[in-house]
């Protein structure tokens, strides 16, 4: 424990800026993954354990698109749309068959999908490490801000995640469709009785939630190594985020993701050995005090 280092960092603007940006870099990408997980749970009541595999799929799709087109925009869109499509297919042909069954059945099919995806990636892309490389547009020296440094790409990444997150929140809170989706989460029979095609809506929500994992994968591809099995660690972290924030709450996911981001960024300076324990500890404490998470509502399904 080195609180002195922590305080001296907070009092120097250079250190504070760099570490706060670090927290945002870690937190926002985590938020992209966790918000999809949370959205799917909130509306469909399904814990999509295959979400990490979707993140991996997004990264690989972006990687191959970038290789083919050399356009980061195309890679980004392909990652999002491709994984969205995978999500819809997965919902229609697999997950929808186990709605209402116990959670173990859902867990099992997700486990199956993780196994299948990991091997498919190994078959198609090989077992070796892949790196997409930084697109030309972002190949700039890091921006200097009050003595601290923030790489240009990360500024874009944080901005893109914020915009997407905000768009998602607005769509759910302020649009008619969002209202219907919220109603669907609470009373699907009633929504169906109003003549709305709930089957289609479920598939769409699942697709959007998955696309968010695809977005995160595509955003990560220029800076993170692509290997089969890369979805595993992000799954655990985003799972912690969703539990702390409250399953089903987008704002909760944002707060919890930033909490994890700040814990990691400043933990690296103040208490490097306890960062992991802190994360599980926070999850346990939240579960004991308020099982439904910071902003979640109690679900009884």
């Amino acid at each position, binding site marked *: 424990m080195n609180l002195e280092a922590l305080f001296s*960092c907070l009092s120097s603007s*250079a*250190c504070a800026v*760099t*570490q706060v*940006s*670090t927290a945002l*870099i*870690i937190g926002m*990408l985590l938020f992209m993954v966790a918000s999809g997980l949370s959205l799917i749970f909130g509306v469909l009541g399904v814990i999509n354990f295959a979400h990490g595999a979707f993140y991996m799929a997004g990264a690989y799709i972006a990687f191959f698109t970038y290789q083919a087109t050399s356009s980061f925009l195309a890679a980004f869109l392909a990652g999002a749309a491709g994984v969205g499509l995978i999500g819809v297919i997965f919902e229609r042909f697999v997950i929808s068959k186990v709605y209402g069954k116990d959670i173990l059945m859902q867990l099992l099919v997700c486990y199956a999908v993780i196994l299948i995806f*990991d*091997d498919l990636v*190994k078959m198609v892309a*090989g*077992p*070796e*490490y*892949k*790196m*997409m*490389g*930084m697109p030309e547009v972002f190949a700039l*020296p*890091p921006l200097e801000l009050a003595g601290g*440094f923030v*790489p240009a*790409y*990360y500024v874009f990444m944080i901005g893109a995640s914020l915009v997407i997150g905000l768009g998602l929140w607005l769509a759910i809170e302020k649009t008619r469709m969002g209202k219907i989706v919220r109603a669907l989460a609470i009373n699907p029979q009633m929504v169906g009785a109003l003549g709305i095609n709930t089957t289609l809506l479920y598939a769409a929500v699942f697709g959007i939630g998955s696309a968010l994992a695809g977005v995160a994968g595509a955003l*990560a591809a*220029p*800076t*993170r*190594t*692509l*290997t*089969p*099995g*890369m979805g*595993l*660690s*992000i799954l655990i972290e985003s799972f912690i985020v969703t539990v702390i924030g409250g399953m089903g709450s987008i704002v909760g996911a944002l707060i919890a993701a930033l909490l994890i981001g700040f814990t*990691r*960024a400043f*933990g*690296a*300076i103040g208490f*490097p*050995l306890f960062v*992991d324990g802190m994360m599980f500890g926070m999850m346990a404490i939240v579960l004991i005090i308020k099982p439904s998470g910071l902003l979640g509502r109690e679900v009884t399904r």
Partner: protein
Amino acid sequence: MTKTTKGISRRRVLKGAGAVAGLAVFGTPHIAGAQAKVIKIALPTILSGRVAILGTSSRSAVQLAFNQLNDAGGINGRKFEVVDRDSKGRPDEAAKVTRDLVNNDGCEIVIDGEASSGSFAVHEVVRDLGILCLHTCSETSSLTADPKQFGKNVFRCARQGIHDAVAGGSYAAKIAKEKGLKKWATCSPDYAYGRDNTAEFLQYAKVFEPSIEVVDQLWPKLFAPDYTESITKLLQVKPQAVYSALWGGDLVAFIEQSNLYRLFANTAYFSGGLGDPPILSAIKNLPVGLNTAYRYNKTFPNSPENTAFNDAYVKVAPNEPTNWAWQNYAAAQFIIEALRRTNASTDSSVLAKEIAGMTVKQPFGGSGITMRESDHTIINYPVAWGKTQSKAPWVTDYVDTEWSKILEFEKQWKKEKGYA
């Protein structure tokens, strides 16, 4: 459901399951009667998950070696078959798979392509079975240096932590002296190998250049996808040089993410794991002038044998050779030489007696790599360090360390550890 039917069905199911299990385990087509001709070599290794490349490159190398032998007519009319199996990176699975390969598939020699913790599990199994085994991927010194771990028929054909530490330490000290690098930091994965490797490197770097001072040590998690917090911490601490035991995909991510912060513009970098060609070619933006240990290079040594190995390897494998590839290929050469000398004996202790103390000319080591008799581990393998450049073959200017120097410090180290 009534109780009686439950009872009956349970019995029936139990019997059925037992029968299936019995039938299945014995009906294996792999216990061929043709054992007299083909000699099977077991290769338990990791073929799935994040370090699958360790297993696939080990497998390609071992297969290459034995296919070359088969094509040349085998030994004494006998041919060889490599039977690989995935342990999924789980030590208990590695132990079970190894037992299976020996007991069920009839393998008579084991090449253990497990990473560190798996290799200790396999070590227990092969000592128990008394079968000939060469560990080819574990670099942990204690596996062979600790006399408690000694196995009559067990060897290690892989670089060893202590050798690397002396070679790396002396190389780093020389550069530190030249360039006045006094403030050092480390950034290594938080697990046994990362911590031991880093501590040993620093120990010898300080022995050779006492002015080196360690200002900070960072321990990101193994397989962490993101190193931003460690990189920005390094920016705060501003060391003149960084040592890192990161390897594989972790290292690729670390280098690319560091590039975003221009970390290597003012900081010298020393890496134990950067020298693998698949890593070097995966990094899109490889900075020039990073220091790395030799892991494999097709131009070092610049000999026809090495070129031939590289060309033959890339023909059968999906990647360029890795550190694991040369270690496995070298292990296969030791086994093949022992088989030649004994007219293809499959008696483990006979083969082991040949391998102990054997020196074989290899594409990788100048005058040949030796399997030291006293502790069953290799010496005289390449321990050079080089500098990165921006195009293939990626690393050049290799500087070798004298093996006599390494062995001298190793002797001292063994005494300190109570191993000798």
